[in-house]
Every structure is written in structure tokens, then in C-alpha cells.
């Protein structure tokens, strides 16, 4: 029944979930995940990402469709599957808030029937890998969000799962901690060969971590391709927001689209296929006295609408 030799660790066919009559939270989606792959699942709020993860882990029952995770039917074999998968829900906690994280790690070891020696080795490994030594004996409720998320990920890996579902693990984190968490996820993927399904609002998460991307909107898959393809075709644009001390001066350069301009500030969209960010920043710095400058990705909603437009044009 549980053939791990197969390349496809997760198989989803025509999956639908309907909570209320009028709206389908997930609408007839199909995809697969290969062993050891990191698949990015992105979409705006309410797109159906978390609902899909909950169906894959067996917490929710699908209205229609077929799911196989490691050869199991998640809703029927939830408890058996639970031993083979790990989950992190970024906005929820599995740690005991009033106790230090080490206590939850030990409890999970007992719940998953892990041999004491093996459990200690795994805890030691995570202490080193996730740099938990300083916080291991502090109460969870006194940890920062970043420290807590590190512990959440370690907790979800204690039982050596073959598949890891990460539901917005970087939500609410600052840029530095986001990078730390991303590095950890990559390390775990390489060291433990764990297959990962990652959902996020943040395109950067997906860009840095994923081999392949699925974009979901209103419960439907609107894009499924490699990260390279998404990056080349849709993520070539960046947004620079700049505040200056002088009246801002921006020339009409090819590849630059001024989205908003006031006396002392401007928001510029740059097509990186035409101009490098460095050249544009050099130009702005040379001609203005900068007070503040930020570089952002274009919003996910814009990527989705561009994907829609391109598919309409093809039709």
C-alpha cells in the first residue's frame, strides 16, 4: 500500500472543497509533488492554500476528488499519516506556552513513540542546527516570534517526517528572521531529504526556496510551472519607493514606470529585464539627496492579474 519507491509523494486529482453552497474554497485542482521537492503554493488571502494543506493532512475531508499522500488517503488514514508528516501553521502554536520548548520536544517524542536515545540525538541535532541552545529552557510565551517559529519547525521535525507542510511559516517575521527560517527550511530539505509543501503570501519565500510553484486564486490553480519560469516571465519587475530632501527628479527612462510622484517622494516600477536595479539606484542617488529608499517585489495580486491577462491574450 505504502510504496515509497514511487517518485510522487503527493498526488491530488480534481480536488474540491465546498464549505458553503455558494462558494468553493478549493475548486477542482490537480497537482503532484515529487520526493525531496519543495513546492511553493502561493495565493492571496482566502485563495484556498490552507484548506488544501488541511485536506492533504487529513484534518478536512474533501467534497470531491482524490488525494494520496505517501500512499495514504489522508481523511481515512489520518492517524497513520500523522506519523509520517509534519506541519507548521505559522499563525498557530503547537508548543506548550508556559513551559520551555524542550518539554514539548520531549512530549512529541513520547507521542510519536520515538526511542529515547534517538529522540535525544534529534533534539541535539536541532539545538545545533536551529541555534536553540540559548532559548531551549525559556518559557515559550517569553520567546520572540522568530524564536518561536524556529522551535515550531524543530517540533514538527522531531519524528523525522517524510513530508512537511509549512503553512505561512514566515508570516509576521522581519526580514532578517525570514532569511534565517528560509535557510533552515533549505537545510532540512537537503539534510533530511524531506518533501516540502510551502504556502506563503511572500513571493520572496517562494523565490528563495522552491523548485516549482503553484499559484492559486479563488480556489483554482492559475499558474503551475518552475520557479525559473515564474521569475523570468512575471517577477522581472521591482518597485522602488524613494523619499528625498530635494524636489525629486526622475527622467523618462525606458523600462521605468513612475507609479506615483509627489514633490519629495516617488514610487517607481522597474523592469529588470531592461534596466538593472543598480543602474536605476545609482541614477537616483546621483541626482537627488536621499532620505529613505526601499525595494519591493510587485504585489502578488499584480502577478496573478498579469498571469490572467497573458492567458486571455493567448486565447
Amino acid at each position, binding site marked *: 500500500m505504502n510504496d515509497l519507491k514511487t517518485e510522487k509523494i503527493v498526488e491530488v486529482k480534481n480536488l474540491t472543497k465546498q*464549505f458553503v453552497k455558494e462558494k468553493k474554497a478549493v475548486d477542482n485542482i490537480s497537482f503532484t509533488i515529487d520526493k525531496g521537492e519543495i513546492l511553493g503554493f502561493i495565493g492571496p488571502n482566502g485563495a484556498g492554500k*490552507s484548506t488544501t494543506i488541511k485536506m492533504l493532512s487529513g*484534518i478536512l475531508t474533501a467534497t470531491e476528488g482524490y488525494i494520496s499522500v505517501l500512499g495514504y488517503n489522508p481523511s481515512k488514514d489520518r492517524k497513520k499519516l500523522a506519523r509520517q508528516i509534519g506541519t507548521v501553521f505559522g*499563525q*498557530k502554536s503547537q508548543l506548550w506556552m*508556559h*513551559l520551555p520548548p524542550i518539554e514539548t520536544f520531549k512530549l512529541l517524542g513520547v507521542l*510519536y513513540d520515538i526511542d529515547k536515545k534517538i529522540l535525544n540525538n534529534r533534539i541535539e541535532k536541532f539545538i545545533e542546527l536551529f541555534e536553540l541552545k540559548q532559548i531551549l529552557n525559556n518559557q515559550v510565551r517569553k520567546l520572540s516570534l522568530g524564536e518561536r517559529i524556529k522551535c515550531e519547525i524543530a517540533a514538527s521535525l522531531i519524528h523525522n517526517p517524510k513530508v512537511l507542510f509549512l503553512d*505561512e511559516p514566515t508570516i509576521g517575521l522581519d526580514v532578517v528572521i525570514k532569511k534565517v527560517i528560509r535557510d533552515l527550511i533549505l537545510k532540512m530539505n537537503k539534510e533530511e531529504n524531506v518533501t516540502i509543501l510551502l504556502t506563503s503570501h511572500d513571493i520572496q519565500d517562494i523565490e528563495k526556496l522552491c523548485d516549482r510553484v503553484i499559484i492559486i486564486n479563488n480556489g483554482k490553480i492559475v499558474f503551475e510551472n518552475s520557479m525559473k519560469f515564474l521569475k523570468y516571465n512575471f517577477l522581472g519587475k521591482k518597485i522602488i519607493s524613494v523619499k528625498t530632501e530635494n524636489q525629486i527628479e526622475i527622467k523618462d527612462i525606458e523600462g521605468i514606470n513612475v507609479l506615483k510622484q509627489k514633490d519629495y517622494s516617488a514610487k517607481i516600477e522597474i523592469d529588470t529585464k531592461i534596466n538593472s536595479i543598480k543602474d536605476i539606484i545609482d541614477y537616483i542617488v546621483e541626482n537627488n539627496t536621499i532620505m529613505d529608499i526601499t525595494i519591493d517585489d510587485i504585489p502578488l495580486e499584480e502577478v496573478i492579474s498579469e498571469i490572467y491577462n497573458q492567458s486571455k491574450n493567448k486565447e
Partner: protein
Amino acid sequence: MKKYLYLAYLSIKNYTYYIKDFLLSRFFLVFVLIIFSFIYKTLLAGKESFASFTLPMLLYYLAITESIEMSKVLVHNKITNEIKDGSVAYQLLRPISYISYHISSAIGEIFVKQFITMTIGFLCAYIIYGFKTINFLFVLASFPIIYGAILLNLSFIILIGMFAFYIEETSPIYWIYQKFIFIVGGLFVPLEFFPKIVLKIFKYFPFTYMNYFAAKMSVMFNLKEYLVGFSIQILYICLVLSLAAFLFSNGMKRVSIQGG
């Protein structure tokens, strides 16, 4: 079995992190016992006993019923919050049943609370009336039914928690349940203080086999009543937990756990 015991152990560890807060809250019991020692005195109106309960027996009775009442863990609130904020997702993904998880993670805390509360209550009763007024062998023999009462109580609270799969708030149900415990459960006075017909009717309710029954057996032991009552406790625990399991398995089909 190991996982259930470990959960209970962890719940004790979790609880004793705030032992000072707990001990402080037990002062209320001292206050209750002193007030009731006066009330009972007035109630007996100079008589040595009422319905075979003497003044010291009544105070020890109250120490036991209060130790059960004040040791409750409001698991229904925990379950309701888990369903509301979606963290139930984590519990459902563990290789342990959801109901067993909550029983085990509450029972350790309850036992510690109950034992300490009862000890404080007995100390107060001793200071007021002295040790020799009740037979402590009866108290010792009644421990199985005290724990039976605790488990039956916990089963009901879990059953109430299961309604969170169907309705938004479980606290109104708990509020009604608590009132039954106060009246039918004989929290402040033994049911023998009510008219005989009322006592007969009350004996058909499961609430009678919680605080009242455990406390009465501790101060007025009767082997026949003990065995019958203990069997009824076990029967009710099985019944209530089966109903909770039924509500859970049906509730799981309708749970939405929306949001990230």
C-alpha cells in the same frame, strides 16, 4: 499508556509553574469553610446532628466537595478556543485520540489541585473541630470514588467541549451544568437535607455521583452504597465519554478550520 502518563506529568509541570498563584487562590477555601462552619451551626440549631451528619462531618464533607469543585480544569473552554482559533489542527495531527489527549492533559493538574485543596480543607476542619471527628480510613477507602467523581466531572466537561464543533460558545451549557452541580450535586449541603422525595429524584441524576457521593462516603462510609455508587460512576463515565466520542466523530465531518 506511556503517552497518557507523560501528558498527565507534563500538565502537572505546566501547572506547578504557577504554584504560588494556586496556593493564593486556595485562601478562598479557608474563607468558605469558616463561613460555612457558622451556617451549619445555625442550620443544626443546637442539635448534635441532622440526617446523621454532625457539625464536624459537615465541614469535612464541604472540604471534600470543594476540593473536587475547585480543582476542575475548564477543558470545554480550551476545546472551544482550539476550534475557534484553528489550533485544533495540531491536536488532530497527533497519533493520539483528541478526547484522550484532553483527558490526560487535564487529569494531572486536577489530581494535584484536588489533593492540595483537600489537605488545606482538612487542616481547616481540624483546626476548627479536631481530627478525631471523622474516620480517616473511610476517607482513604473513598479515594477511588473521589477520583471517580473527578473523572465523571471531567467527562461531562469534555462532552460540553464537544458542542464547540456545533455551536459557537459552550459557556452557556457549562453554566447550566455548574448549577446542577451546585444543587443536585450537593456541593454545600448533603442531599439528605432536602425532602426525601427530592433525594429520591436526585439519585437518578449523574450529578449526584460526583461531589455529594464522594464526600458522603468519606464521612459516612457504607459498603453497599459505595459499591453501587462506584458502579454507577463507571457506567456514567463510559456513557458520557461514548456520547462525547460520537459528537466528536460527527463534529469532525462539519469542522471547517478556515484561515491560515
